[in-house]
């Protein structure tokens, strides 16, 4: 594995520490490596954790464990399978592309980079995502999200496309408590969302052509990764979206009274 651009690791029966140590060994010994392929992954946690190399792709075959790509800053992870709890947790930069579903808290506290999930995500996804200057986290969900999507969201973008694998419409979303405590960023959901589905501090805003321009590139990227045809792409771009954004930057500004006079 000294000088190759592609390194394959068979993760069968490997403990997570052993697997991650192997990945770091490859990175240390072989600065030329461009792609690491992990085969037979079964629940190993923390893959890609804290890795900074920008021109690196990690391909995962199987189901990686929790905190996939946590603190990651640069690489692209492509998962051929579902992911567990908190993929992209506190991620800084890079991409995670999931050919399957993401577990609960997908994109927890994400600060930058992009996550594309072909199917669904669990509860509290995109919770407390935040942006700062050029760091703008984006979570694109092909299917649907469970409740508390974008809770405490402080920045970035969540896009829910609401389609199945073939690009067919899934109908009105059912998630509730969307954007509870949101105080930054925006959530775009394809189709109608009722007021009662929103959490405290979230508000439905007008979806403008400007918004459409903002999400267009991410839709194209999504269709590209998951091989969706032009017809589906056009449909997604031209659909009606519900934009959910904060009522205010200071949701708790009026909660307290000083113990003074």
């Amino acid at each position, binding site marked *: 594995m000294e000088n190759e651009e592609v390194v394959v690791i068979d993760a069968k029966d490997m403990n997570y*520490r052993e697997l*991650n140590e192997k990945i*770091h060994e490859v990175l240390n010994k072989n600065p030329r490596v461009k792609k690491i392929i992990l085969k037979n992954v079964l629940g190993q*946690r*923390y893959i890609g*954790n*804290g890795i*900074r190399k920008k021109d690196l792709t990690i391909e995962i075959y199987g189901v990686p464990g*929790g*905190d996939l790509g*946590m*603190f*990651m*800053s640069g690489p692209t992870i492509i998962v051929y399978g579902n992911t567990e*709890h*908190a993929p992209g*947790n*506190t991620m*800084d930069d890079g991409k995670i592309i999931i050919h399957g579903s993401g577990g609960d*808290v997908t994109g*927890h*506290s994400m*600060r930058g980079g992009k996550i594309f999930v072909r199917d669904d995500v669990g509860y*509290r996804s995109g*919770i*407390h995502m*935040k*942006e*700062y200057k050029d*760091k703008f986290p984006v979570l694109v969900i092909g299917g649907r999200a469970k409740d508390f999507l974008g*809770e*405490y969201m*402080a*920045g970035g973008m969540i896009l829910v496309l609401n389609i199945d694998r073939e690009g067919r419409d899934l109908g009105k979303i059912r998630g509730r408590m969307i954007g509870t*405590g949101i*105080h*930054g960023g925006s959530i775009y959901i394809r189709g109608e969302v009722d007021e009662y589905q929103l959490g405290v501090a979230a508000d439905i805003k007008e979806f403008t052509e400007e918004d459409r321009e903002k999400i267009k590139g991410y839709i194209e990227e999504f269709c590209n990764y998951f091989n969706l045809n032009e017809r589906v792409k056009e449909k997604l771009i031209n659909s009606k979206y519900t934009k959910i954004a904060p009522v205010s*930057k*200071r*949701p*708790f*500004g*009026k*909660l*307290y*009274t*000083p*113990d*003074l*006079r």
Partner: protein
Amino acid sequence: MIPSAVPPKFKVEIDREKCMLCGRCVEECSWGVYRKERDRIVIYSNRCGACQRCVVMCPRNAITVRENTTCWRSHPLWTAEVREDIINQSKTGRVLLSATGNAMDYPIYFDRIVLDACQVTNPPIDPLREPMELRTYIGKKPKKLEFEFVEEEVDGKKIKKAKLKTKIAPNLKLETPIMIAHMSYGALSLNAHLAMAKAVKECGTYMGSGEGGLHRALYPYADHIITQVASGRFGVDVDYLNRGAAIEIKIGQGAKPGIGGHLPGEKVTAEVSMTRMIPEGTDAISPAPHHDIYSIEDLAQLVRSLKEATRWKKPVFVKIAAVHNVAAIANGIATSDADAVVIDGFRGGTGAAPKVFRDHVGIPLEMAIAAVDERLREEGVRNEISIIASGGIRSSADVFKAIALGADAVYIGTAALIALGCRVCGRCYTGQCAWGIATQKPELVERLDVEEGARRVANLIKAWTLELKELLGAAGINAIESLRGNRDRLRGVGLNEVELKALGIKHAGF
């Protein structure tokens, strides 16, 4: 209209004979108590919180601040404070916000515990002539040490040399068991942070970053800073984690167990926004739980994730508030690969907490330390995890007692701030701190001299360290290791049987 004004808490008086109308008080008071009107200083006593800035700075010592004696009809149940709070809340409909630590009259067990000293049978040790070992290692200790014997040739002779086989987990090396607690940049000013960072570096100990990221001005001291990861994950990236000496996961805080924190938007200045990595002017909200931790297994996942991010080179601490089941929780933490558990007692300080939490939630630190130490010993995992005690440590005696009850080291917070000038006026959350400590206003922050502040905090740590040595010597002990969990050197005074049992100590006389 129902008038909601209540009498001012304090009465400010200027001795007009002494006053030379220099206007220093007007300048120094960031609360607007004084206004200069032609040849007179006008006083608004209702704005005064008794922070003493004006009293100390007045060149003529002309200012007196005293408790206002306008009396309320006295009543044992309906105290003035209770009545004031009701008036305030019936007017605003809001949650009462407060600062500093628990202000209720609960027993302070530290003050009901006395220390032992040697007489005749076992001579005391004089620290002036014999070394006293205060060095403390925070982190996992191996259950046993294994060696392998390697044969080496030295000067033509074959010698068997012992080599350590056991892998030692990374530990923090403290020259004194006193560290400075996590107080964030944002809640505190940069000058306050810098002063404390300089002091801990000088003293060979550590300070916590708090949940606010690490300002670049603190990078030179990062090897003496424990970085914090709390539920808001502010300022957390892989560089931040690797920069510090250790990482602390904040689950709870003694001043407000069970709730998160809100740094109000007005305190999120350009610099604070940069360190926290959030836009300027937005509320920085730390949710009550970490939303990726809903169980002890999830906590273990985060502990290990942080270790992975730092290639298992940094110790990871977990801070919890002292609550009823603290022993069981700490035991769970001990099984999570964490290296230390921080127990924050109910007297722990805060820059802002709902008063109802500050005053009513959590348990006394003294009992929490004893319970945790006891349980970890019973479970045979005490070596797996160090105990750091914090929340209301006021003196070297408190440090000594905390260690004898079972802690490895302590964090001090309010005490370090008092060294920087804080007078505990309890209005940190207003951002108006006249001493330049709990504020982001540049004109106030610059009042705090970093070098002088550093010297004072270092002095405090050094003075307590000296006293600890003296106390150890008097007890006939020459290493802090031998004091840890050594409750036989403590006796209770005026405590009942249940209290003594909870503390695991005997009453004086036995």
